[in-house]
């Protein structure tokens, strides 16, 4: 029974977790250490940190956050945002990340996926694809946290990164992100059915039904969400309980019995 992974996403700006809509916006929602610990204790299967303005601010703050928050959290941590070189990857892994998520640099120099996979192992390399709908069934890949177009067709790009050795794809719908109107099911299903590596769906969860349909119809292997958790609309135990009721397998959690 394949277990669907629940992966809270923390967008980090400086010392804070922030939240935006369509990948924009500056609302502070909390402290990374507190949120990370809370989600870990509630049964999150992995954690995802995205440094949303890595190119503008000092990189050291994300490293410090990764270092500090990972000390007593023992689930996989993926860190992304502004990774440009193989050295950046190495530095993040040394600071405590288990996997890295890369977008902009991969579109500009796809070889970094291949070299990163060879050097650190495919399982460390998550390629992040931010997708914006241009017409039914067609999406364009964006970079710089949803600010810049690339002209790349998401379906073709997903195929290419898979061939280059990416371990997973983190697929974010820019149209749905932060809106709470549901994941882009067509996008998720298209990519998840096409590639033979796991796809983590991100962007749009507003209620449990959205999460269920993203797994059942979207065929996502893992689900990432931000607003719905940060704004306390639902908790991780509630998500897992509902998924189980709907026949979707998840990892059992609970401080007393397991993990």
């Amino acid at each position, binding site marked *: 029974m394949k277990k669907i992974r629940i992966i809270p996403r923390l967008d980090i700006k400086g010392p804070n977790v922030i939240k935006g809509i369509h990948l924009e916006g500056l609302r502070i929602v909390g402290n990374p250490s507190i949120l990370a610990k809370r989600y870990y204790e509630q049964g999150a299967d992995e954690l995802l940190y995205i440094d949303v303005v890595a190119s503008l601010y000092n990189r050291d703050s994300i490293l410090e956050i990764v270092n500090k928050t990972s000390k007593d959290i023992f*689930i996989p941590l993926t860190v992304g945002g502004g990774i440009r070189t193989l050295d950046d990857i190495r530095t993040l892994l040394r600071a405590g990340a288990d996997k890295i998520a890369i977008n902009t640099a991969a579109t500009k120099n796809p070889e970094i996926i291949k070299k990163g996979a*060879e050097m650190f*192992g*495919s399982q460390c390399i998550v390629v992040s694809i931010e997708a914006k709908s241009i017409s039914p069934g067609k999406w364009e890949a964006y970079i710089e946290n949803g600010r810049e177009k690339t002209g790349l067709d998401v379906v073709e790009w997903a195929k290419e990164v898979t061939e280059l050795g990416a371990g*997973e794809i983190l697929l974010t719908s820019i149209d749905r992100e932060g809106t709470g109107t549901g994941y882009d099911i067509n996008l998720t299903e298209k990519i998840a059915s096409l590639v033979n*590596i796991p796809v983590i769906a991100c962007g749009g969860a507003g209620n449990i039904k959205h999460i269920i349909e993203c797994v059942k119809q979207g065929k996502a292997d893992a689900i990432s969400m931000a607003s719905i958790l940060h704004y306390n609309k639902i908790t991780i135990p509630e998500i897992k309980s509902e998924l189980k009721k709907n026949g979707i397998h998840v990892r059992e959690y609970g401080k007393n019995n*397991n993990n």
Partner: protein
Amino acid sequence: MEKIIIIDYGLGNLRSIVKALNYLSKEVKITNNPDEIKNASKLILPGVGAFKDGMSGLKSRGLIKPIKDYIKSGKPILGICLGMQLLMTESEEFGLHKGLNFIPGKVVKLKDIKKVDEEGYKVPHIGWSQLDIIKKDSIFSNIPNKSEFYFVHSFYVKPNNKEYTTSVTMYGKQEICASIQKDNVFGCQFHPEMSGSLGLEIYKNFCKLNS
């Protein structure tokens, strides 16, 4: 005095394992110094990446003999993920490559099942999976059966002798070996340092083992 050594042979993120052991208040050293490895009281062989790179990482640092000597002494060694795979005779990853041959058997690829009726299992196998624990002592002494651990791998081990398999897990319809033991040589395919509090128990149990 307990000397827990993690072997640094150029592969893998060692920090997560150090973090786990530090959390358990264990002092641990990362090294590729042959004497320190030989004289360790507990040895951990981590690993993330490709088999042939792992073997050449060990070879180029002259670590194969110190590890062999350590194992001969009867002290416990724990291989994790690729580290466990390296303990086997050989691997089929990117060609046929020889391993350390401490546990007879080979390393083979997970079958990529992509049909709809097979629930779309993908390779690499990434995520949490339940263990059926066969040998309920040593590192599994207080671990409930069906406990879940975090896996991330594309290859798995097939020991020649069933008695070396200490736990299994299902991947689609494939039953795969999740952990092994032959005398003082232990291995886990999953990552205890990424498996929450039960993963920490695995490390605790390993540290409690006597030679």
